[in-house]
C-alpha cells in the first residue's frame, strides 16, 4: 500500500495541471465562440503553412 503515497500526489498533481490548463483557456477566451471554433477548423486558409 506504500505505493499510494506516491500515486495519490501524482494523480492530484496531474489533475491540477488539467485544471490550470482549463483556467488558462477560460482566460484566453477560448470558450467565447464555440460555433466559430467548430467552423474555423474547416477553413483551408492555413493548410500549407502556419498562420503568419
Amino acid at each position, binding site marked *: 500500500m506504500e505505493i*499510494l503515497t506516491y500515486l495519490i500526489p501524482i*494523480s492530484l498533481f496531474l489533475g491540477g495541471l488539467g*485544471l490550470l490548463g482549463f483556467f488558462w483557456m*477560460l482566460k484566453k*477566451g477560448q*470558450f*467565447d*465562440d464555440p460555433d466559430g471554433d467548430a*467552423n474555423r477548423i474547416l477553413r483551408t*486558409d492555413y493548410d500549407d503553412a502556419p498562420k503568419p
Partner: protein
Amino acid sequence: MTAEALPRPAVCPACVVPLPDMPLTDAPVEGHIILSLPTIHCAACISAVERGLADAPGIRTARVNLSLKRVTVDADPDVTPDHLVVRLAAIGYEAHELDPSLLSDARGDITGKNLLMRLAVAGFAMMNVMLLSVAVWAGAEAATRDLMHWISAMIALPTIAFSAQPFFKNGWSALRVGRLNMDVPISLAILLAGAMSLFETMQSGEHAYFDAALSLTFFLLAGRYLDHRTRASARSAAQELAALEVPRALKMVDGVEVLTPVAELAVGDVIVVKPGTRMPVDGLILTGESEIDRAFLTGESLPAYVGPDTPTSAGEINLTGPLTIKVTAPSKESALHRIADLVALAENSRNKYTSLADRAAAIYAPGVHLLAAIAFVVWFVISQDLRLSLNIAIAVLIITCPCALGLAVPAVTTAASGRLYRKGVLLKNATALERLAEIDTVIFDKTGTLTLGTPTLNQPESYATRDLKLAIALARHSAHPLAQALAALAQTNLPDVTDVTEVPGRGIEAKLNGERVRLGRASWVGAPPSQQTATTLQIGEAPPVSFTFSDQIRPGMTALMAELDQMGFDIHLITGDADAAAQDIADRLGIQNVTANALPEDKLNIINKLAQSGHKTLMVGDGLNDTGALTAAHVSISPASAIDAARVASDIVILGRDFSPLSDCIKTARSARARIKENFGLAAVYNMIAVPFALLGFATPLMAALAMSASSITVTLNAWRVR
C-alpha cells in the same frame, strides 16, 4: 436603455446571479469597432469577412465571432464604421454598426466565466474525492480509511470555500432580510456536511460526506450555470437590438453640420433632422416644414403636419422635409427616456410574481429543516448520544438536499429557450415561460404589431392606368411612406415628369408636358379631407384623384388568430388609432373586442381591469404608448421592430417579421411548465425513498452519492422532453 441598464429588483435572492467584481462596460476604446453580421453562418463566411477587412487600410485586426454573429475590428481612429459596412456590403455581407457601450459582453461574459471556473474546480475536486471514496466504500479500514478521509478533507474544504460561494452569498442575503430561499438549505447542507465530515475524520469515524458535499456543489453549480447561459444569450441578443441604434445627431456648429453623439447634446444646441430619420431629442422646430410619424408614440397611423414653433418629441420620425430643431431637453431627459425610466422603476407584475421554484422552496426549505430537527430530537431522546443524533440529522439534510430541485427549473428553461431561440424568440425574463403558460387573454396593439406599419395601396387595379403611372412617377421622388408604397408598385412606361420639387409637409409638384401635376395632402391640392390614409393626385386643374391606403397585416397573423381562437383565448385589439382604421383591421382578422382612440393610460386601465377580474393577460405591442400596458400585463411580447423602451418593458421579443412563432411560444411554455412540475414530482419521489433510510440512521455516503447523481440525471433527461 438596455436590458443591462435595468437591474431587476431581487425577486428571489437565489435568482440573482452574483455580480462581477469589475465594471462591465468601460468607455469604448478609440478605434474599436463592433459590427453585427446577421447573415454569416459558415467557415467560408468567417474567412471572407476577416480577409476582406484585414486588407482594408488602417485595420489592425478583425476577428469574427460566429456564435454572436459579430466582428470586432481593431482599427486606426480615422477608420469609420460606415466605411467598413460599405466594404462588407461590397463582398456580399450585410453589416450593421453596434454601439459598444451598450454591449456588456463586448469584453467577454465575466459572470459566466466566474461560474464556469467555480464549476470546474468543483468538478475536479468531486472526481478526485469520489476516487478516494471508492476505496473507502470498497472496504478500506482503520489507518487507510483515515488517510483517504484526510486527503479528501484537504481537497474538499478549500473547494467548498471557493466553489460554493454563490450559494452562501445568496442564502445569506435571504436570511438577512428574514426570508428563506432554496440557497439556505443548500448552504446549510454543504457547510454541515463539510463540518461533520471533518469532525468524523478527526475522530477516525466511519462515514465522511466530503464527496456528497462536493457533488452537491457541482450539480447545483451546473444548474446555476445553465440558468446563467440561457439568460445571458437572450440578454446579449436583446442588447444587440438596442446597440443597433447608434445614437448620433447632426449638430450645427458655426453653420457646419457635425456628427455628434446624442448624449453630448445640450439644451439650446441646434440640430438638423433629415427626412427619414428619428428625432433624437425633444425640441422646438426653428425652420423647415415636414410631416412627422408619431405612430411609435401614439399609435396614430396618419402622419401629422409640422412647421416652425411646433414642439417635437424624441422618437418621432421626420418624413418629408429637413428640419432644424432647437434642443429643449437633453437626451437623458427627453420624453422618450422619461417614459422608459418610468417603466424601469414601475413596480410591475413580474416583480410580484412568485416563480414555481420559489414556491417549491417556500414549502421545501422549512420542511427539510423541521425534519432534520425532529430526527435530531427523537434520536437524542432514544440514544442519549449527541454525536450519533447530530450525524443522523445532518445525513437527513444531505440526503434531502435539492440537487434535483436545483436542476429542475434551469434544465427545463434551458431546453425550452434554446428551442424558442432557434425559432427567433428571445426570452428576456427568467419566469416569462411560467407566466406565459398561465394566460387566458391576448391583447394586441394595432400599428406595428398586427400590421407592419407600412401602408399599401388599396386595389391598384381600380385606378385609371394614366393616373396610377403618373402618381408612381411622382412618388419616386419622395421618402414619404405613402409615396414609397406607390413607388414600390412595379410599373413600366412611366410618364416623364420634369421640374420635380418636393414641398415639405405637403407633397410633390412637377410638370408633365408643361402642365402642373401635384401629388400630396388633400388640403394642399384642394380636395376634401379623407378619413382614410390617402394621398391625392391632381393633373392641371382637373378634379383630384384620391389614392387610399391601408396598413399591411403582418405575415402569419391570420393563421395565428385562428390558432389562438382555437386555443380558447379572448382576443382584444386596443389602439390609439382612429375607429375606421382599427375596425378595418379587426374585421380582416376576425377580432371581436376592439377599442380605438385609446390613450396610453386607457390601455393600462383596460389591462388592470382585466387583471382585477381574474384574467391573466398577454400584451403584444411595439410603441411607446404601449409600454405602460406591456409592463402591467401578466406577460408581454414585442416585435424586434418595436421601439427600444417597449422591448425593454416586454418579457419576450420576437425577432422575425412573421409572428407565427407566438403560438409555438405558448405551447412550449405550457409544455415547459408541465416538465418543471414533473421534475419537482421526481425530486419528491427520490426524497420519499431516501428520507426514511436517513431518518432510521441507515444512510451512508455511498447512498447519498447514488441518490444525488441518479435524481439529477433523471431530471435533466426529463427536461429535454420539452416540445
